[in-house]
Structures are given as structure tokens and as C-alpha cells.
């Protein structure tokens, strides 16, 4: 269970770091701005 908890913690942490990056929104990607 600690292994699973570690994996979920990683997903949360890397997800939070990734969210700070300036990724395009869905609309921007669909119109090919990026």
C-alpha cells in the first residue's frame, strides 16, 4: 500500500509542477497556435 501511496503522491507532485508550465489551452491547440 505504501508503494501505491508513493505513486499517487508522485502523480500529485509532478502534476502540480506541470500545471505551472505555460501549456496551451485546448482551444489554442485546436486552432494550431502552438
Amino acid at each position: 500500500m505504501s508503494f501505491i501511496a508513493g505513486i499517487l503522491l508522485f502523480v500529485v507532485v509532478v502534476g502540480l509542477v506541470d500545471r505551472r508550465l505555460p501549456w496551451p489551452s485546448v482551444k489554442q491547440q485546436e486552432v494550431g497556435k502552438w
Partner: protein
Amino acid sequence: MVAGHFGFAAMVKSREKSAPLWALMLATVWLDIVFVPLVLTHLETMQTIHKGYGGLLIHADYTHSFVGMLGLSAILGAMFLRAEGKRVAIVIALVSASHWVLDLVVHRPDMPVFPRNLGNLPYFGFGLWNHPPVAACVELLLVIAGAIMYWRAAMGVSAKAGKGGTLASVSAAMIAAFGVLVLALDYTS
């Protein structure tokens, strides 16, 4: 296989930049997440073939059946439909389905077509876990390729936004380091 799934999620993120990474990573292990409570309630089980990496025969006749995978992937995609839109929801559903495809490569034949193996059809699995070093190398390749593709995409969007690449590098390094760590723990377990 956990590290390889996350590596694949990072690859997808590099191509589908608007999809949240955490959602892709959740999607790539979604079948295993549903598997956990079913194991705890003995509806699905694991059988040890040998100690160490890839030593399990998994009797997951609901979550890891082909039809079960389609249903669970559709449910997960639907859960993201309102918040993320149709395109990302479909991507998330497909990433969830990719779990079954990657597992198909490494599992011994323990993955049925229908839940509870209705119809007594053959079980599927190419059994790469019978060759642990090869399977581990495939997982490592997925992790490294995923981290590199993610890093290049993240550096690209950072540059376009006029920002430095520190955060992109930190995020990619976390993906690589965690993937290698999980694989090492898995391999030496």
C-alpha cells in the same frame, strides 16, 4: 509495470499539450487503480510465479479483460468530458486503453476478452515477463523516451511564452528519476 505506463503518459503529454499530465498519468494506471479494491475484496487475485520483477500471474478478469478495459476507459474519459472537453476526454480514454496494450506485451496469458472470461475464450499475454531483463529494458526505454519527449515539448512551450526552462527541466527530471526509481524497486523486489 508502472514506470513504463508513466513513461507512455509523458510521451502523450508531449503530443497532446493541453491534456493535464496528472490526468494522463492517472489514466495510464486507471485499470490498476480499479484493480486494487477488487484485490482487497478477493474478486481479483494475484498469484506469485516467482519472486522478483514480473513474477506475478494476475487473475484480473474484470479490470484487465478487453471488454472491461473498454468500459473502464470510457467511464474515465466521460469523467473528464465536462472539465477538459471532448478532445482531451478521448485522449484520456485512449491512454487508459493503452494500459491494456502495454500489459498485453509483458503479461503471461492471463488477460481475457470478456469479464470473468465469459465464453471460455483464450487468455492473452505475450509473456515478456518471462524474460525480466528484456521487459525491464523496454520499461526503461519508455521512461527515458517519455521524459525526453516531455522535456523537449515543455522547453518549447516555455520558450514560446518567454520563460526559462528551469521548471520544464525539473518536471522532466522528476519523471525520469521517479520512473527509474520505481523500475529499480520493482526489479529488485
